[in-house]
């Protein structure tokens, strides 16, 4: 049919843009109670007493429960699913019992007849706190005077992790001609999915069955954790449904307290229960992103060859370990520090420390933007200090296209790529040489124009389950896919992946339509309901196409094989003489296209079972569990031009050129949408976004009045190109497109701003690069006017 590779319009969009989508918050049930959670206003405090008397007395309040009630009622602690060696995992209850450890830590829950009464009653709960000292900064956690966030975790250090060959690294620095040193902060981000988190639960007393609706990226994982750890309802009596989900960016991967509290309350009061986060609650309870403090050094030869990299990072984990938190700054961060380059001498070490802040976990890119940011900042500074053009220094160090599969010194084996072609395409699309000439002219006129480059790598499509297990994951990272052909030839596709905006209902239908030779309109994609789909691992890490899509390819292959058997039998030909015509959706005898059976007729025959080959089961439904052989490695070249107002420090984005290699592309429109959205999100970190806690642990940017998200009007038109080097690891040859934009754009823009400021000898500023920060830096170096400086001049 040829759907794959074409920009088919998204089949899910009509319901989204017409307000017909069904989100958890839309669910209304007879007799439903509404929950509101009493949250700690302190970042760190001992809970001395909770008085719920007044709240309970308010008309319309059904019940009030505290953390102790949940504990007594059998709730288990929330587990951390990623356990690196010697990790110390703090105990985390759905409602805290002894201490509040961050602003927003849940203390009690009100159950009421409507959400207004619930909110009123929350204010009537009287908690007597004894405030304690607070620690916010990831690096200060180990200081002697730092308070312990958890009494049983000394020095607030949950784990440490390192990778690389220290001896090779040390040697690279001993033999280096030039060393670049940089201290940097990768600031805290708040995910801000459009739809706040929400949970509805319905306990049926007679059958002892629970249904939980939750805005999650992986409902099956939530079901497993609810069943095995937190709620302890047997899996076969527990159904978890994630209906339409309005974005997640990673923040809806994790198992959250409210997913425990809501079903627990439903069972306790024997009524359906509902909790929907307010935007303010989202800011202080959704797992946050990034927050690294890093000290890094890069070793180079004078010709620009990069020989070594030494990285020490303090990763702020927040007050508890969120579900996958230890994965992010370890196996998705240090492993990526080689970037696109051949260098051998890499050593990365990190400490995961606990603070009195909201827990930190995966946020779009998750570890990989942090790796790319520091690596590409260092490369840019090196280029400047060695007077080499930043494109040239990168190209010089690239892994060659003939070197794939390429084993990095950091465990990963890169699948495929052509970084030279990638940069050639980007520089020609941007007309890079002219950009530099124009920049020189602009500088002569006193203008602060900057050009930023980034070349980034990503490890996507997690992951081979055995590898995930060896790195600390308690589960596997395969994916499931069912192709169910109905008697009339219509198809239902069931996937363990989950779409929270990515458009799986379109792309998965494109894949299966092409595999079977049926029209897309005959295919329905079902996801998100554990009562319908097989066990699966959900969506994150740009894995749905490469892992989930491949599972569907495998199942479709099995369907084709079965149809060939049936057709051969009915046409009285040998199986090996049969041709499955995917363009026409029929099976015919080689050399005799007239002797054929159409798809729908074969499907029907499989169900009548009147005339099947001996030993073949009736029916037409296949399931596959696809475990990938490796990660995939998307890569990118982004080129940005910005200009700074020399008086105010304001940054204007003038051009944005992005060339990405995400492998084969199933739907170019969707991929471009992902790249564009990703770029905007990454630029948000470079210029605007920051989760800021004050010394007492109060979040100062907890509302959208202070937390600045990117807006469409802030961007020039994106100039997008791509190259395709198919990944050899999966049958679709795809690599994953969900995160590349975010990974690449943050550092590209940061590099552009620093390039603009280079003539003023401003070497580095931490993000976000706000006007005040830029202006203050310009003030410090003296007159805020451009000096004429030969930059990247060389010979």
């Amino acid at each position, binding site marked *: 049919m040829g759907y794959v590779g074409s920009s088919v319009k998204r089949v899910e969009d009509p319901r989204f843009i017409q307000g017909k989508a069904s989100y958890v918050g839309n669910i209304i049930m007879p007799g439903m109670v509404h929950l509101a959670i009493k949250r700690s206003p302190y970042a760190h405090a001992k809970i001395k007493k909770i008085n719920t008397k007044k709240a309970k007395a308010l008309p319309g309040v059904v019940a009030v429960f505290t953390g102790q009630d949940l504990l007594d009622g059998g709730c288990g602690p929330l587990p951390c699913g990623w356990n690196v060696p010697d990790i110390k995992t703090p105990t985390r209850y759905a409602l805290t019992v002894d201490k509040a450890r961050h602003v927003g830590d849940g203390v009690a829950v009100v159950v009421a007849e409507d959400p207004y009464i619930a909110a009123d009653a929350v*204010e009537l709960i009287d908690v007597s706190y004894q405030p304690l000292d607070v620690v916010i900064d990831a690096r200060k956690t180990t200081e002697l005077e730092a308070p312990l966030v958890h009494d049983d975790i000394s020095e607030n250090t949950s784990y440490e992790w390192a990778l690389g060959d220290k001896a090779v690294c040390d040697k690279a620095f001993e033999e280096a001609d030039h060393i670049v040193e940089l201290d940097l902060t990768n600031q805290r981000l708040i995910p801000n999915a459009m739809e706040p988190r929400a949970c509805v639960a319905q306990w049926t007393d007679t059958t002892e069955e629970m249904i939980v609706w939750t805005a999650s990226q992986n409902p099956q994982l939530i079901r497993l954790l609810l069943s095995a750890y937190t709620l302890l309802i047997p899996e076969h009596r527990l159904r978890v449904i994630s209906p339409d989900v309005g974005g997640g960016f990673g923040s809806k991967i994790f198992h959250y307290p409210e997913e425990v509290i809501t079903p627990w309350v439903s069972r306790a009061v024997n009524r359906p229960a509902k909790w929907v986060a307010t935007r303010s609650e989202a800011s202080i309870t959704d797992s946050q992103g990034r927050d690294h403090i890093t000290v890094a050094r890069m070793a180079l030869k004078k010709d620009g060859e990069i020989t070594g990299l030494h990285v020490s990072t303090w990763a702020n984990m927040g007050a508890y370990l969120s579900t996958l938190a230890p994965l992010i700054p370890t196996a998705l961060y240090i492993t990526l520090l080689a970037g696109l380059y051949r260098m051998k001498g890499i050593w990365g070490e990190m400490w995961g420390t606990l603070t009195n802040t909201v827990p930190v976990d995966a946020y779009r890119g998750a570890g990989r933007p942090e790796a790319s940011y520091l690596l590409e900042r260092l490369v840019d500074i090196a280029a400047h200090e060695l007077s080499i053009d930043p494109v040239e220094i990168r190209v010089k160090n690239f892994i060659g296209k003939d070197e794939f599969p390429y084993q990095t010194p950091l465990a990963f084996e890169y699948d495929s790529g052509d970084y030279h072609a990638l940069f050639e395409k980007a520089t020609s699309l941007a007309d890079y040489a002219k950009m530099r000439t124009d920049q020189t002219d602009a500088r002569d006129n006193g203008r602060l124009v900057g050009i930023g480059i980034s070349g980034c790598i990503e490890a996507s499509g997690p992951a081979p389950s055995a590898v995930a297990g060896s790195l600390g994951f308690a589960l596997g990272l395969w994916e499931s896919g069912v192709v169910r052909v109905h008697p009339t030839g219509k198809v239902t596709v069931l996937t363990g992946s989950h779409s929270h905006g990515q458009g799986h209902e379109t792309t998965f239908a494109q894949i299966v339509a092409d595999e079977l030779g049926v029209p897309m309109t005959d295919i329905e994609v079902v996801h998100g309901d554990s009562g319908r789909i097989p066990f699966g691992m959900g969506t994150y890490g740009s894995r749905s196409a490469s892992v989930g899509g491949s599972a569907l390819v495998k199942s479709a292959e099995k369907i084709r094989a079965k149809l060939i058997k049936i057709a051969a039998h009915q046409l009285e030909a040998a199986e090996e003489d049969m041709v499955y015509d995917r363009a026409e959706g029929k099976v015919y005898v080689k050399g005799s296209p007239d002797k054929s059976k159409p798809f729908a007729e074969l499907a029907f025959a499989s169900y009548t079972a009147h005339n099947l080959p001996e030993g073949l089961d009736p029916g037409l439904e296949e399931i596959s569990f696809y475990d990938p052989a490796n990660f995939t490695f998307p890569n990118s070249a982004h080129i940005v031009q910005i200009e700074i107002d020399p008086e*105010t420090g304001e940054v204007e984005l003038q051009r944005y050129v992005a060339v990405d290699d995400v492998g084969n592309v199933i739907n170019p429109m969707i991929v471009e949408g992902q790249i564009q959205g990703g770029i905007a999100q990454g630029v948000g970190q470079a*210029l605007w976004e920051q989760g800021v806690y004050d010394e007492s642990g109060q979040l*100062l940017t907890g509302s959208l009045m202070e937390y600045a998200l990117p807006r469409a009007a802030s961007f020039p038109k994106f100039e997008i190109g791509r190259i395709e080097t198919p990944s050899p690891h999966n049958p679709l040859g795809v690599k994953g497109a969900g995160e590349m934009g975010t990974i690449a754009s943050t550092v590209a823009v940061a590099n552009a701003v620093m390039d603009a400021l280079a003539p003023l000898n401003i070497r580095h500023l931490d993000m976000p690069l706000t006007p005040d920060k830029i202006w*203050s830096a310009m003030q410090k170096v003296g007159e805020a006017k451009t000096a004429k400086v030969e930059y990247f001049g060389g010979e």
Partner: protein
Amino acid sequence: MYSASFDYYRPKTLKDAIALLKKNKDAKLLAGGHSLLPAMKLRVSSPSTLIDIGRIKGLDRIKVSKSTVRMGGLTTHAAVESSKELAKACPVLGECAGLIGDLQVRNRGTIGGSLAHADPAADYPTVMLALGADITVTGSRGKRKVAAEKFFVDLFTTALKRGEVLTEVSVPAMKTGQGACYLKHRHPASSYAVVGVAAYVSLKEGVCSDATIAIGGATTVPMVADGAADALVGNAPTVKVIEGAAQTVAEAIEDPLGDVYASGEYRTHLATVLTRRALTEAFKRAKRQK
């Protein structure tokens, strides 16, 4: 985001609204609701009574005469932004209105609501100060006019007394040789003015005969920078004179506001830069105003 409970009235006449205000002690007036409702949802504000004046007839009129521009308290930002009459008589009003929030906010938000709320980072108060607006408030004893300079008392506090409704704002229409300009540094999250500067100037035979420079966002109450006006009046508006006037602003700002996004020092700096730019543009316009 659930507010505390409250009583709700929707009077049809101004008289009824004033009577309700008198009767209900901690009542709040609801016009566009774009400042009040978010505050109530966050439970920062929990008035026991809301008096919705949004449908009182006649309070949303724009009236332009040769000498005066009058806008009813319920005039929306969108109406001010798109009014052709205002674009002729006093274009800076539309310029300011168009910079407020986004289109949805401008469709609902009202000039009376903005002025009565007295957010230090709002746009209208600054412009009203520069234009020397009169603000009409109506109570049970009738109307009184308050000069803009007297109207803004403190953070979120105005000269409105209990039982009074802001019913009209009037500014002089622009005459030959007069010009005004409003510039703001927009907060990337809230869209409020981190600093907003409104400049009004009058030229006679190439010499500045009158000027008012108002600055919002930098201090708890929007302020008039008298020193800047003094530096201009009696002089031809050369680059040097304008720069000199702008420099006086830095000294005039005491205790500037500071937050995560912009320090007090940076706000002060922005005020000087924006003053120079606004003055330059205002003089350009003054030369064009026939």
